[in-house]
C-alpha cells in the first residue's frame, strides 16, 4: 500500500478488523433471531421484527447516542464493563459494536430468507428419523441455506465496514482506535483540499467491496462444484 499514507493504512486495517469482528459477533445472535422468525409463531413476533428494523430506520446518529447512553462510561452496561476492565467506550471494540448493531438487521433479514427457503418437509423428515432440533438445524437447515448465508454475511460485512454515523457518535474519532476508514474519508472530505485523499480512500473501499463479493462468489462456486462432482 505504497500510495496510502501511514494514517490511512491504519484506518484501513482498523476498519477490516472492526468489520470482521462485528460480523463474526453478530452472526450467532442473528442466526438465532432469523431461525426463530423463520420457523416459529409466537406472541410478540411483530414486536421483535419491528425492534430489529430500528437500526435501519433510525438515523445512525440516534443509534450512536443510544449506544453511548447504554455502553458509555456512564451507561448502565458501560459502568459494569468498566468495572470488569472490559471497557468498550472510546475503543475499537465499541466501534465494532456500533458496526455490528447497524449490520444486524441486514444479517437477520438475509438469514431469515435463507432459512425460509429450506423446505420444511425435509426438516420434518429429519425429525421423524429421530433428529433433535440441533441436528436438524446444523445438519439440514444450515447446509441447505448456505448460499443465502454467505450472501448475508458478505452484505453484513460491507455494512459494518462502511459504518460511519453511529460509530463517530458513539466512540468519536480516535486515530488507531476508532478512526475507521469511513471516518478518515469523512475527515478528508471536510478538510479544504482534502478531496484527493478522499477519492483515494474511496477507491480502497471499492476494492475491499470487490474482494468481499468475489470471496463470497468463490466460496459458493466451490460448494456447487462439490455438488456436481458427486
Amino acid at each position, binding site marked *: 500500500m505504497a500510495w496510502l499514507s501511514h494514517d490511512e493504512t491504519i484506518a484501513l486495517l482498523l476498519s477490516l478488523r472492526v468489520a470482521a469482528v462485528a460480523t463474526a459477533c453478530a452472526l450467532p445472535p442473528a442466526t438465532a433471531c432469523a431461525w426463530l422468525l423463520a420457523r416459529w409463531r409466537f406472541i410478540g413476533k411483530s414486536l421483535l421484527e419491528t425492534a430489529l428494523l430500528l437500526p435501519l430506520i433510525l438515523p445512525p446518529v440516534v443509534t450512536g447516542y443510544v449506544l453511548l447512553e447504554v455502553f458509555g462510561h456512564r451507561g448502565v452496561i458501560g459502568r459494569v464493563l468498566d468495572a470488569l476492565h472490559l471497557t468498550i467506550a472510546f475503543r475499537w471494540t465499541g466501534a465494532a459494536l456500533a458496526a455490528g448493531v447497524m449490520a444486524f438487521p441486514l444479517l437477520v433479514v438475509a438469514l431469515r430468507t435463507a432459512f425460509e427457503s429450506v*423446505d420444511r418437509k*425435509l426438516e420434518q423428515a*429429519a*425429525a*421423524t*428419523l*429421530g*433428529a433433535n432440533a440441533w441436528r436438524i438445524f446444523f445438519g439440514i437447515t444450515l447446509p441447505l441455506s448456505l448460499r443465502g448465508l454467505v450472501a448475508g454475511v458478505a452484505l453484513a460485512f460491507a455494512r459494518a465496514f462502511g459504518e460511519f454515523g453511529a460509530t463517530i457518535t458513539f466512540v468519536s474519532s480516535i486515530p488507531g482506535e476508532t478512526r475507521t476508514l469511513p471516518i478518515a474519508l469523512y475527515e478528508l472530505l471536510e478538510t479544504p483540499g482534502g478531496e484527493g485523499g478522499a477519492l483515494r480512500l474511496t477507491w480502497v473501499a471499492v476494492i475491499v467491496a470487490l474482494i468481499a463479493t468475489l470471496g463470497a462468489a468463490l466460496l459458493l462456486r466451490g460448494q456447487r462444484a462439490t455438488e456436481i462432482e*458427486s
Partner: protein
Amino acid sequence: MIELDFALTRGEFVLQLALRSEARALALFGDSGCGKTSTLHAIAGLLKPARGRIALDGRVLFDADERAGVPVAQRRLGVVFQDVRLFPHLSVRDNLRYGAPSSNDSSRFDDAVQLLGLGALLKRKPDRLSGGQARRVAIGRALLCDPAALLLDEPLSNLHREARAEVLEHLRGLKRELALTTILVSHQADEVLALADAVALLDDGRLRKVLPVAQFGGEQRFATRATAEAR
C-alpha cells in the same frame, strides 16, 4: 396392535376415526382427500389431533386426556413420505445413515442395503437417482433408524411400471424378512393386496370399514377410480 381413536380438523376438513387392529400390516385405503395421509401424519406426530388417543404395540404416542404426546423425534417410527424427501445435500449413504448416526452396526446397514439393492448407489447424490431408486433409499433410511413401526405413504405413487414392480418386490421382501408393524397408505388395490394383512377403508374423513385383506379382494366396488386408471 394398532389403536387409533382421534379427531382432527384441517381447515374445512374433519377427520375422525376409531379402530383397533391386531394386524401386523394395516393399509389405509381410500380416494385422495379421504384423510389417509393426515392419519399417517397424526400417527407420526406431524399433526396434532384435537382429541383422542394413538397407540402402537402398547406404546401410547398421543393421549389428549392425559395431555401426553411423544415428540416426533422420539416416536421411533420409520416414515416413508409420498414425496420421498431425501436430503439433497447428502449422499445416499449419508441419507441412509441419518437416522442412526452413531451406530457402529455395519451389519444392519449392509443387510438393509442388500435387501433394497442399494449397493451401487451409495456414493450418489439424490438428484442422480431414478424415482424407484429414490423410493428404495427412503425405505432404507426409515428402516435404519431402527423403528418400532413403519409408516408408508403411497410407496408406489408416481413411479412408472417397471419402477413400481421393482419397489413392490422389495417391499414384499421386507415384509417377509422383517416382522415390523406397518401402516400403509394407498389408493391402489394391488399395493394393498400385496402388502397388507388388514385394510381400513376411509371415505371423506370417516372410517367405513376394517376388513382382512382376503375379504378386500372381493370388495371390488371399493376399488376407486384411481385404481381403475392405474390398470
